[in-house]
Each structure stands twice: as C-alpha cells, then as structure tokens.
C-alpha cells in the first residue's frame, strides 16, 4: 500500500480508481440464499417447493420487505447465524429458467411529476430505507460517490455503468431530501463525473477513511443537519422507480491474492460467495481467507455458502501469504494508533481498558465516536486486533445500558 519510505507523513491508504467492469451474467444457473433477519416482527412468506419470480416478496423484517432476486423454486428454508451473532432465516432459491419479472408496483414512467410522499411510499414498498426522509429535516444533502473501502471500486463502477441515470438520481435526492444537494467525489474522478453531471461537485483527497459517511461532512466543513447517501443506493432507488422492480443485482469488486483488485462484476444479491469464486476460477484452500467487503472493513466468512449482501462492496480472497499475522504482543504505547485516528480518540488507552474490561473508562473516553475504520489496527506495531477490542467494549457497554434500563423499568 501507500507507505512512504520517510515516516514524517502519517501512514495512509489511498482509495482505488475504478477498474474494468465485466458484464457477464454470473447467475445464469445457480442459486441464491436470501437472509431474513429474525426479530420480533419478521417472517417468511414463501414455502418450500413454491415457484417464485424475480421481484416476488419472500419475507419481511421490521417493516422492510425482502424480495427474490432470481426466478426459481424455493428449495430450503433454514436458520443461520451471521458473524455478529444475529440470526437469520435463510431462504434458498434455485434458478429454474430465465428471469420472469414481478413488479412491486406499476411503474409510471410517463408521469414523473409525482409528489414526494408518493415516491416515498413506493420506495418503502420496494424495501428501501426511507424513514429518515420522512422524519428528518436536512440542511444539506450529500451524495457520496467515494468508495466504501480500500481496494474496491464498485461505487464508481456503478456510476459509470449507470451514466445516463446519474443526473436524474441527483435530482431525485434533492426532491426527497428537500434541500440543497452536493455531489462528493474523490480527486481523480471529477473529470468523469463532470461529463455526466453539471451541478455542484466537491472533491476530497482519496485518502481512506475520509470518504466514510460518518466523517465526510466534516471534511467538507459543513455544519448542521447533514444527510448522506451512497450513490449506488440512490441509483438503485431511481431504477426501482422506473421499473417497479426491487434491487436484485449489484456490482462488486473482486480482489484476488496479493491484495490485487481484479475486476468489477455484476452479481445477483444472495449469490453464495463460493459459487461466484468458482465461476471466476479462484483457488481457495485451507488457510485462506474469504472476505465479504473490502480490505479494511470487510468480514471474513467461515463458510463459502455465505451470500452477497445488498450493501457488499467486494469479495476478497487472501492467500496464505497475504493473511495478516494477528498474534498480539503487549502494547508498546508507541502512539501510532493515536496519530492516525480520524476521530482523535485515545486508542491506546481504549484498547487497554477494553482488554481489562474497564468499560466505564471507555465510555469516558468517547468510545461511541469510534467509526471502526480500522486505521489503528492497520498501523499497530504490536499487531493487536484493536478494532475488535473496541467493538467488544461497545457491545458490552450497550449490554450494560440495556440492563440498566431494564432495572429502572422494573422499579
């Protein structure tokens, strides 16, 4: 990565520039596994053996609908546990033939001058998160065209792929948010975006993690209530409004051994990772790492059957040589983590407090402001899994808070 020989400048990682998009339909045959989060208000509305079309409602959780992303037959409904301990119904659908479409609502391309409320209702019925648009008042609204993670370039590839929709999508965002819209890109991408969009564009240095939703408004010196949305989600919303179909496919970046981005590919949401990798002729052996997402924030999977999620940015395979050695040694207090933290947190102290379960101190040191960008663990001299320690402390604090609430409710 971008590591200077001299160490005066802080270590930094740059975002990728877009790479080639391969338009091969990967799920000509095959299956998808769709996850329905199990909660107090959730359910699966299909049964085994049922034939479903692409776009068919198969379940719901907390007022959000989940739709089938291929046309086929429901083979299996099971329960799986995802990595963070959340349980899901896994609905496995096997493709039987070409896509047949089942729209959520009848699209009305002829009548674009719909009111804001109507658009929000339509989007909600197609499973999009629109409650923020309903409840919040924005001073500014940012369309974030930077990448979610390093090594991935799926967001920019999506924008380039859906060039003709971009301006319309920005207008849609303005209408939904009811405020001024700013398009933010990383330096180097401005020229390409200027060809397709004529409004206000701001650029940021392509240094991770400055493009993260949490801190991007600060990088632009904005104040007040700032809404922010990734460009890919916005384009999906527009497409749904135009076609009446829920989102069923996504562009993700394939990253191969040697941490090398290979290409962007179009995959069906819910396609198992192992199937995608098989079709791309990947070699994965024991001792390898399969990562859903990018290099800094992706999650490893223990089973290739895990499906691609609808916010996935990439699929990454690390060979034995690429796997980072995480044998933690004692913290030297060298201060590298404090130097790189974008939130100015006292990472050295937070890690120790978390390690020794002193969670109230973590709270005093504002652990809630951690955005889990991973820069601290990236530079750690002692190879400590710092992000994991911080996540652990956050989780424990939330459990403590919840139990406190329960006690006060009992009284």
């Amino acid at each position, binding site marked *: 990565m971008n590591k200077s020989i001299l160490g005066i400048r802080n270590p930094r990682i740059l975002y990728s520039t877009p790479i080639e998009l391969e338009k091969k339909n990967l799920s000509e045959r095959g299956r998808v596994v769709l996850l329905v989060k199990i909660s107090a208000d959730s359910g699966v509305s299909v049964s085994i053996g049922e034939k479903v079309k692409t776009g068919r409602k198969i379940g719901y959780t907390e007022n959000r609908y989940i739709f089938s992303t291929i046309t086929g037959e429901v083979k299996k409904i099971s329960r799986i546990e995802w990595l963070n301990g959340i349980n899901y119904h896994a609905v496995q659908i096997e493709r039987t033939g070409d896509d047949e479409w089942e729209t959520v609502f009848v699209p009305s391309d002829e009548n674009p001058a719909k009111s804001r409320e109507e658009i929000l209702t339509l989007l909600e019925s197609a499973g999009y998160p629109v409650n923020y648009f309903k409840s919040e008042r924005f001073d500014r609204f940012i369309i974030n065209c930077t990448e979610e993670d390093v090594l991935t370039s799926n967001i920019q590839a999506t924008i380039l792929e859906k060039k003709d929709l971009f301006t319309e999508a920005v207008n849609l965002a303005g209408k939904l948010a009811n405020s001024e819209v700013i398009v933010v890109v990383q330096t180097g991408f401005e020229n390409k975006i200027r060809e397709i969009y004529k409004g206000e564009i701001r650029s940021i240095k392509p240094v991770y993690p400055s493009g993260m939703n949490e801190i991007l408004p600060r990088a632009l010196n904005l104040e007040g209530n700032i809404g922010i949305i990734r460009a890919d989600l916005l384009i999906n919303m527009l497409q749904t409004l135009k076609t009446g179909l829920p989102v069923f496919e996504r562009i993700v970046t394939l990253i191969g051994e040697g941490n090398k981005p290979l290409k962007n590919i179009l995959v069906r949401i819910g396609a198992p990772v192992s199937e995608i990798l098989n079709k791309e002729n990947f070699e994965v052996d024991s001792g390898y790492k399969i990562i859903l997402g990018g290099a800094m924030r992706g999650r490893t999977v223990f*089973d290739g059957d895990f499906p691609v999620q609808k916010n996935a940015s990439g699929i990454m395979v690390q060979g034995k040589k690429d796997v980072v050695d995480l044998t933690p040694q004692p913290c030297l207090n060298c201060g590298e983590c404090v*130097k790189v933290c974008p939130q100015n947190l006292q990472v050295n102290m937070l890690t120790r407090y978390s390690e020794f379960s002193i969670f109230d101190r973590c709270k005093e040191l504002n652990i809630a402001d951690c955005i889990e960008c991973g820069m601290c663990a990236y530079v750690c001299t002692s190879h400590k899994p710092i992000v994991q320690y911080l996540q652990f402390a956050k989780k424990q604090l939330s459990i403590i808070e919840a139990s406190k609430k329960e006690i006060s409710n009992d009284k």
Partner: protein
Amino acid sequence: MINNRNLIMSPAPHLHIGASIAGLMKTYLIALLPLIIFAVYGYGWHAVRVIALSASSAMLWELLIQKLFRRKVTIYDGTAMISGIIFAMLLPASAPWWLVITGTFIAMLIGKHIFGGNGAHPFNPVLIAWAAVSISWKSQMDLGTAMVNYDKSFPVDFPLTVLKKAGAEGLGIFNIDVQGMWSGKLSLFLGNQIGGLGTTAGFLIIIAGLFLILRGKISWRIPSFFILGVFFTALLFRIVNPETYADPVFHILTGSVLFGAVFLATDCASSPVNKTAMALFGLGCGIFTVLFRAWSIYPDAVPFAILIMNILNPLLDKIHPKIPGNNVNVIKVES
C-alpha cells in the same frame, strides 16, 4: 476449486502496514550503530567489552526472568538488547563487569518485568538501572574520576564536574571562557570530551535522532522541546550569574542531554502520545535537567530529570485533543 474447510477467520482490517516490534528495534539498532562505532573508535576494547556485556547480559536476564515468571519468552524481538545497548551508552568505558551485569539485572527485573514486561513499565528501565548503580557505586560511575587514566588528546575531566566544582570560570581547560568561545564548543560537539560511551558525540546523536524522526519512529516534539527546555532554563541562570553558571549551549553539548533527548526520553511506554503532552514532557525534562545540574549534588542529572517526568506521564496524557465535528449531525441513509 473452493475448499470450504479451515478458512481463516479474523477481525478487520485485513491489511497491515508491516510494522513490528522487531522492526522498530532494528531501526533503533541502526540509529545506535554510529554511536557504538564512535565509542569503539574512542575507547577500543574497553568499549566493546562494556557494550557487548551489557547487551548480552540484558538478553540473558530477560530470558531467565521470563522463564522464572513463566511468561512468553520475547528476547527475539530485540527490546532487551536495545535496552542493554542504551544502558552501555550511559556507562564510562572503565565500568567493571559486575557493575554492567548488575545494572542490566536491575533494568530487566525492577525496571521492566516486575511491572509486566514490554510496554507496561512506568519508568524507562535503563534509567532505573542507571539510577540504582550510580547511587550505589559512586566512584565507579563518577565520570569525573573514572577516566583519569586514559590518554586522550582532550582534557580527561568530565566537563560538568568541572562546572560543578569551579563554576563557569573553570571551563578554560575546554577552551571555553566566561564569554563563551565557539572553538571549544565545536570540539565538544565533535565528541572530544569525557562522558558516557555513547553520549559524547553530539553530531552523531543528532544524525541518529533525525534518522529516527524521519523514519517516524519517534516524534520530533520530545527531543526538540527537551533541548529548548535546557536552553531557556540555562539561559535564565546564565543571565542571573554568568560567573557560576555555564552558557546554554555548553549545557546542551555536555553530559547526556542530546542522548537523553533522542534515546531516553522518547521511550515508548514511559512517554506521552499526545502532541501537547509530548511538548510539555520534553520541556519538563529540559527544565529539570538544568535545575538538577545547578542545585543537586549530581553533575549530570539528565536521567533523574527524565525519571521525574516519567512519573508525570500518565497525567500529561490526560491532555488530549477533542473529538472533531461536534457541530455536525450526520444522518446516514443506508440499506
């Protein structure tokens, strides 16, 4: 072919910059190398004896202590070796073998492993050892008398002992009169003075410090503010009484001010990590150095000054920057 079995699970991030404790210690070793060569050039086999004995005995003590405490053995990462070398740099070339071995034992046991080993020590272990041996065996550690039998092209008196005994007027033997002549100071800067093995050659220490700063291993703040602290405090004394107190540049060039600023005060575990705190830490070290030199019985008290500031380190680190962006309320629309 996808083999689904035995995949590696790990938390994010999945990249690493490649830094390690062993790498850090290698950089320190490279920085110390010119000083070692200069010491060997100046004192020959005497220097080789002290440095080699100190480094090897420190590693051996660490091995023994870790075996005894049933801890993971970490002598491979080089921290014990670097501690040993830095300790040797503070000793006179005439230091007897038992003094070196006792010193490294104190450094490893009382300085480091009693507190939990690497990174857990509140004081710089080398300084604990230095303080213990220099209080216990004054005559062997007294730089003013330890080296009188050496034949050198420069005066074999420790400049700071001369200053202590005769005041600024007595510095004539180093070509420094009360007005402060530059030729004598240049000679001191080039290492023509009595001192610890590695603490005399100012120009080499500055090069080593710049190397460490450019490699990003130490912050520029602690060494710079250390030297600034020495300069301004010494200047105050000088203005009040130029006959007794030497000028600031003399203070910086003699004893272990430069060595302490680069190698001792910047010890990771016992120095702060925040910018303001680092500046205050360095400044405090500098101020205490001159105060001790002026008013204590020790001619060169850099290690004591740093030890005092080590105590204040956790307090200083409470001064940390605020979390930015309090005036922004970010509402993320995410699926």
